[in-house]
């Protein structure tokens, strides 16, 4: 009970504060402070789980957390805190531009953010497959409000697509979860269970047919939410139409949630006698997703769509890591991707505000407009494509070196090709953005304050790469 209070007290406070008559300017200070406070509280709560390698911290019947879960929980909340802090500058600039004149919209943004982040935290905290599904569906509903922020035709279309595609996809995941639940009722556990830990313990006794079918449906359903290749259609639209801090949240936190759900289900199947499905299917699918996304990267017209497809590519890499059965590697890749991608989305938000367009062909000479933006942008882009000093390189290197059999080897080849292709594509686009002559009048004067958060994130990513600290922490050579 204490744990539930600790988890929900601060978000509820933010919601209540946002709905009161407080001025937006005051909220911009209070809400970020509250989210950082939430991060501290969660660190304190999950500290025992972080320290031990094996034990599981149980809060109540359906809620418990292990080391990987705790890492993800803190990462998500860290990303959320950074994005919301940055949004204070973002919205202040919007006001300067004469947009976002309705303070009501911004207040609703904070409400939706608080609920969205709480729903995402529950994904990592729950031990029950059913509640996991409920949390993920809740994230869809709350983040739809974020995507709809600008309330124009484009955002409406993006929201509609997002809501319908993800709801239908997630419905299939529910079907998969039901099948897994049904598989546990064939003698493995009396009365059946949805507890992931119990299912992993009894994985060998689960009804194999139902389990495999359920796994495939779960992969399909949560894959839709994560944006794997043929089902990614909602992702670029939603990411590009949401305001920059919300795009950062969607890309840096939400995709991790869906992939974490896949990871949990894969963990069950991996222990059972039909591990082949769990080791080959995500690997192949992940490689194909990365490949398809890197093709989409070549011809792009929107700056945020570019990063959205880069996210799809990274989802492919993470799915690959899940298929290899290495949760720490999956976390490491997710960490690097989240840090770099959030920095990129936040900076892109600044650039869009300054240039007044999302069109890649009109954004030129950012280095000339603001050197601090340009350098951070270049660093973040390097991090996201997996350049050596950054964490992404280490993670991708380790993922590729973990392949064991022929299938995985071939898939790794495809993945490598995709990585190279996306590296070239992103470098070309970033080069055009950075150099050249600015094509536009600078409306918003770039302030160093708006670079602080992206810069910090880049530095973290760099540290993660140089020291490999996270991997040592997770006891992975």
């Amino acid at each position: 009970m204490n744990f539930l209070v600790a988890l929900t007290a601060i978000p509820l406070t933010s919601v209540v504060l946002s709905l009161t008559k407080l001025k937006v300017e005051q909220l911009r200070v209070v809400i970020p402070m509250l989210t950082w406070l939430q991060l501290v509280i969660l660190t304190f709560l999950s500290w025992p789980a972080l320290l031990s390698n094996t034990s599981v911290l149980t809060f109540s019947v359906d809620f418990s957390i292990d080391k990987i879960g705790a890492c993800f929980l803190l990462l998500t909340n860290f990303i959320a805190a950074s994005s919301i802090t940055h949004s204070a500058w973002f919205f202040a600039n919007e006001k300067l531009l004469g947009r976002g004149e309705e303070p009501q919209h911004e207040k609703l943004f904070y409400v939706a953010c608080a609920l969205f982040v709480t729903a995402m935290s529950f994904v990592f905290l729950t031990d029950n497959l059913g509640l996991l599904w409920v949390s993920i569906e809740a994230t869809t509903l709350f983040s739809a409000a974020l995507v709809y922020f600008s309330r124009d035709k484009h955002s409406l279309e993006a929201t509609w697509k997002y809501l319908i595609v993800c709801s239908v996809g997630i419905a299939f995941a529910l079907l998969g979860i039901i099948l897994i639940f049904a598989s546990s009722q064939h003698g493995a556990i009396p009365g059946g269970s949805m507890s992931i830990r119990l299912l992993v313990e009894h994985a060998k006794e689960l009804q194999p047919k139902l389990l495999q079918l359920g796994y495939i449906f779960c992969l399909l359903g949560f894959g839709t939410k994560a944006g794997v290749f043929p089902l990614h259609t909602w992702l670029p639209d939603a990411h590009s139409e949401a305001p920059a801090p919300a795009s950062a949240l969607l890309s840096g936190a939400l995709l991790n949630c869906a992939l974490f759900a896949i990871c949990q289900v894969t963990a069950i199947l991996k222990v059972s006698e039909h591990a082949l499905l769990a080791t080959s299917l995500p690997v192949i699918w992940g490689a194909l997703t990365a490949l398809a996304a890197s093709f989409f990267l070549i011809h792009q017209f929107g700056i945020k769509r570019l990063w959205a497809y880069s996210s799809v590519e990274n989802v492919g890499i993470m799915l690959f890591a899940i298929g290899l059965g290495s949760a720490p590697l999956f976390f490491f890749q997710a960490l690097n991707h989240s840090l770099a991608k959030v920095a990129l989305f936040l900076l892109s938000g600044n650039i869009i505000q300054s240039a007044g367009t999302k069109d890649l062909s009109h954004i030129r000479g950012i280095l000339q407009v603001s050197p601090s933006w340009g350098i951070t942008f270049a660093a973040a882009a390097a991090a996201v494509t997996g350049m050596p000093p950054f964490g992404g390189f280490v993670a991708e290197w380790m993922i590729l070196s973990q392949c064991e059999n022929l299938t995985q080897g071939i898939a790794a080849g495809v993945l490598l090709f995709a990585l190279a292709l996306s590296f070239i594509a992103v470098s070309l686009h970033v080069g055009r953005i950075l150099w050249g002559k600015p094509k536009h009048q600078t409306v918003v004067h770039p302030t160093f304050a708006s670079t602080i958060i992206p810069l910090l994130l880049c530095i973290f990513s760099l540290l993660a790469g140089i020291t490999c600290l996270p991997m040592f922490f997770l006891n992975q050579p």
Partner: protein
Amino acid sequence: MTITATEICVLTAALLACLMVGSLHLRVNLWLYSLSTLCIAAATATSALEHSEMGPIFIAILIALLKSVAIPKFFSWAIDKLHVQRDLGAMVTPPLAMHAAILLFALSFILTKEIPSPAGSVNGWFGAAGGISLVFTGLLLMLTRRLAISQIFGFLVIENGIYIFALTQTNGMPLIVEMGVLLDVLVGVMVSGLLLFKIQKSFEHIDVAQLTQLKEY
């Protein structure tokens, strides 16, 4: 070969959903959806009586009240407000789509034949087939319709199918999960229902086929 009352309700629900595909009139669709959901509530109640449990009766009443009365009422109100009567239909004409739905209904019997029956029960074949058929029908409904409101109907039918699958293939889902799912579906439907009005206001139509501004290239 006997057929239980639950299975009769499930198959009736699946067939009623197949008829939904055949009509473009939104109100007819709503009525059929309401009836089909009522059958599902009845299936919940009869299966509870077969197992002599009282918990699911509560769920059955909730489904009957919320999904077969409240949601159709809401959408009927929305239809009045949006001034739409008929969908335009996409890809194939509704009767052909209905034939496809019935074919898929038959196909789902073949597809689900291999699914092991739930523990402690003689067979769950018909239930599984009914559930999968509802999922197919919902997808078909989403594919062959153009209006945003019909897409929501399709989603609701899929949701019904999954519920039926859970009802017949497991020996009772945990109550808290069931409530969570129901709540999520309700909120989702309300959110998308409200979005409908926004779409109508911005675009002056709710035709999804014309929402193509965000296409690649």
